[in-house]
């Protein structure tokens, strides 16, 4: 497969076209561009331009496509590998039809000719040729359905003309092949009938009725006649299927591309040129799956189509004809591209996570890189991101996100929130720091803030010595408040002797101890402490 060397797309920036450099800065989902001069002096000011990929992820209608196809995608990944392939094929066909019905649903909403029509056309053909792999006989039927489905603007008149001749003499023709007869039986009958009609045309049996003659010419697939009525067949692939219907109804899949190529050539007059869609369909008729994927990648500004189709084809084991590595790498490459594109969207990023999960080689590392960048606008969003990381044992990302939230809370003096994030981050150093702040606050104001949090630390208290002290010190205050002086003083003493009290706090502790001296049953403990404290401070 030769590589096509093509010109890159040029995007114009409203900036000077000469005498200036363009500076840039990568952002999530965009690139900022501005006029500047490197290593030169100069004056000038200017604008900063936000340049983005022409992206569909911002379309509300396509959001439905992304959401629903995500659902189908995940379902596809979980199909059991150990099923024999004859059981899997109908499942794959069904999944293919699901994808297509999602496309059709979006098409209806968009209500105008759009890329989705082309996508559905291509996908449908791929389903017929590759996934369903219709053999000769039913192949034509499938192709007929395919064309009919997409021939939205078939001239009613033409249909009437074609249908008006359902005369007795042609009744045999309309028997559906593959019903009760074998392909060969049908073929024989059909040839016989074809020769009959041909003979009639040759000896001018229908000369008296021009209309009938025309119809018969069509029915035997007379190329010139068909081409004369090109306007009734607006596309070459309609022409192709029509011709096949009338000339080669038992066409084999391997023969398709001959007819496809010649029909395309015949249908286009010398003025028109084939469009990207044409080459994609031709590649499909040639069963060149990789060419189809390649051409679609080129023609579409969105990875959605190639990513999902390639994934499905990979599951059907159709991408392994070259070599294994090639096949699986291509699928993963496209899925990673698609999912990365979703990640820049404020809500669709959550869909992307599942795609990365099913990319065995690079999915995890891509997810790690990108999930860290999701803006943590609210606690709720941060918790959502965290849950995703925790489920996947991405401990470094968990720690980092919690640390960012803790830092943000601390800067805004929300000590309780900062402490709880530090605990979640298992960040002992930060927990210590925040505990110090709490204690300083207490010294300054005589009360604690965020009592709920401190009272319910539980085992998290053990994260750092200072935090343990904070928790226990608060407990001391509670006991004192409940007049449980004996327990309070015991706790106070243990705090002192366990050496987790910061030095700076000893005076405070002693001061706290003073009122306890009044209590007879505890006074001797306090006295002992006072001595102890004296000794230690030396």
């Amino acid at each position, binding site marked *: 497969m030769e590589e096509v060397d093509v010109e890159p797309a040029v995007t114009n920036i409203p900036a000077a*076209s000469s005498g200036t450099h363009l500076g840039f800065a990568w952002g999530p989902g965009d690139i900022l561009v501005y006029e500047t001069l490197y290593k030169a002096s100069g004056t000038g000011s200017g604008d900063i331009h936000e340049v983005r990929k022409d992206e569909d992820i911002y379309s509300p209608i396509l959001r439905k496509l992304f959401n629903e196809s995500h659902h189908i995608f995940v379902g596809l990944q979980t199909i059991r590998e150990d099923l024999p392939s004859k059981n899997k094929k109908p499942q794959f066909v069904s999944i293919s039809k699901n994808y297509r019905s999602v496309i059709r649903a979006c098409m209806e909403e968009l209500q105008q000719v759009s890329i989705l029509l082309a996508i559905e056309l291509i996908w449908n053909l791929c389903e017929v040729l590759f996934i369903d792999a219709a053999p000769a006989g039913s192949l034509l039927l499938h192709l007929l359905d395919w064309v009919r489905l997409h021939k939205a603007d078939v001239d009613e008149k033409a249909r009437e003309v074609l249908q008006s001749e359902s005369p007795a003499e042609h009744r045999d023709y309309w028997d559906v092949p593959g019903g009760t007869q074998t392909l060969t039986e049908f073929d024989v009958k059909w040839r016989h009938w074809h020769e009959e009609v041909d003979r009639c045309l040759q000896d001018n049996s229908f000369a008296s009725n021009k209309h009938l003659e025309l119809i018969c010419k069509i029915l035997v697939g007379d190329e010139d006649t068909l081409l004369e009525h090109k306007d009734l067949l607006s596309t070459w692939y309609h022409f192709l299927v029509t011709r096949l219907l009338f000339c080669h109804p038992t066409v084999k899949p391997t023969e398709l591309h001959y007819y496809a190529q010649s029909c395309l050539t015949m249908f286009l007059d010398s003025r028109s040129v084939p469009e*990207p869609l044409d*080459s994609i369909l031709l590649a499909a008729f040639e069963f060149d799956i990789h060419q189809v994927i390649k051409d679609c990648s080129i023609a579409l500004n969105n990875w959605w189509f190639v990513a999902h189709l390639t994934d499905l084809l990979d599951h059907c084991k159709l991408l392994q004809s070259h070599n294994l590595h090639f096949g699986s790498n291509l699928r993963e*490459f496209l899925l990673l591209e698609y999912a*990365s594109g979703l990640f820049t969207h404020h809500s669709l990023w959550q869909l992307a996570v599942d795609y990365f999960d099913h990319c065995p080689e690079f999915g995890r590392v891509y997810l790690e890189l990108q999930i860290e960048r999701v803006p943590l606008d609210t606690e709720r969003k941060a918790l959502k991101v965290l849950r995703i990381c925790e489920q996947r044992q991405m401990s470094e990302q968990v720690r980092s996100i919690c640390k960012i939230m803790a830092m943000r809370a601390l800067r805004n003096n929300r000590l309780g929130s900062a402490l709880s994030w530090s605990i979640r981050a298992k960040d002992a150093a930060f927990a210590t720091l925040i505990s110090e702040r709490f204690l300083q606050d207490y010294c300054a104001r005589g009360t604690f803030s965020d009592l709920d949090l401190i009272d319910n630390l539980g085992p998290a208290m053990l994260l750092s010595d200072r935090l343990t002290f904070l928790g226990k010190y608060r407990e001391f205050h509670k006991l004192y408040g409940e007049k449980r002086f004996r327990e309070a003083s015991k706790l106070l003493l243990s705090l002192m002797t366990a050496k987790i009290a910061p030095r700076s706090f000893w005076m405070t502790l002693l001061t706290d101890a003073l009122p306890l001296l009044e209590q007879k049953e505890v006074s001797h403990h306090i006295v002992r402490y006072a001595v102890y404290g004296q000794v230690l401070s030396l």
Partner: protein
Amino acid sequence: RGSLQWESAAPAQYCLHCCWHIGVIIMFVARSIAADHKDLIHDVSYDFHGRRMATCSSDQSVKVWDKSENGEWHCTASWKTHSGSVWRVTWAHPEFGQVLASCSFDRTAAVWEEIVGESNDKQRGLSHWIKRTTLVDSRTSVTDVKFAPKHMGLMLTTCSADGVVRIYEAPDVMNLSQWSLQHEISCKLSCSCISWNPSSSRAHPAMFAVGSDDSNVTYGGKVQIYEYNENTRKYAKAETLMTVTDAVHDIAFAPNLGRSFHVLAIATKDVRIFKLVPMRKESTSTGPTKFEVQIVAQFDNHNSQVWRVSWNITSTLLASSGDDGCVRLWKANYMDNWKCTGILKGDGSPLTGSSGQPTAMSTVVGSSVQTSQNALNGMSAGRYFFPPLDPPRAGTRYGHLLPPSSLIEHCDAEPIQPQQQALPHRLSSRALLPLPEAEGQ
């Protein structure tokens, strides 16, 4: 066959060009921000989450901008930072709070921290930044300033025209006024840029690359790679890229993505991408890692000097800026072949020449009716798949692709002038009303 047919046809509307499986990079100017600096902007830097940005200028100031929910940028701080042109500005990782560093022609680098202000300031959308420290060790212009990867702590690196790389550390993250100079590395050549290897893998020690813009080609390699040695606790030179003999203006390690090798992009007289493959160390070896250096790609499309290179977040795209006044985007397909997939180019029509009113939206330059159709269709390229409804009117390339008038928005529906250039697919820039994002997260 098919591919040859449509390639040679190349009518104007088939401007969906790209490389195999690389995909189309069709871009547009979504919005223009009047930066309001009084002189040249030298650097623009996004913060980690892409919600804030900092700009610095020859006007000696730094501005900080915040992006609101509807995507508009508001300047929330603007202050004089140095007594000379400010070359670079960079954000620390948000784990360390809201911290910026800047470097300047005035031979200093500085660290700034945002102070949570009074509530009425917040309501007015303003914030205050205060200087935490000035780093005055350099004898010459400080050409680059970068924070080291966060797993190394809060470490700042500068490089100067005097050829010295300095690495500072703030041991107490809560006290940003205390920085100590941990390493001073003399590179012997005037330095223009530094880049840290962002990888935090334990498989290899911390590493950074320095580029020199010394133009004397006889001095050999203009890119040096330094690596941290756990035993000596110092940085030692691991590699000099001897094939890079011209002045180097910018350098960038790619994000690692779990590879065993490193990828480095260099802006010199062309764009070069190197692969550095660590060679297996003998257990007795105490010196720095030896690398096998391979050149992966080399592009001279910018025609002369390349001034900046930078990777996007996933290292799937490299952008470069050069003397041809363009920004080029480079991408590898899954076979690791690199190609240019997009070009951003000034079209000769700057919107504002002076510090005008801050506007979030730019005025439309030229018309591009079908791109507004894109916005509403949600997808571009639909128009290329279907036979024309009417033959094109003379003089209008895209005449037959006009959507129904109800769908035409603010763009003037004047016909596009036929392009004079050979490139058949220059899309006019235009402003796009951001599509309403239906639900919040």
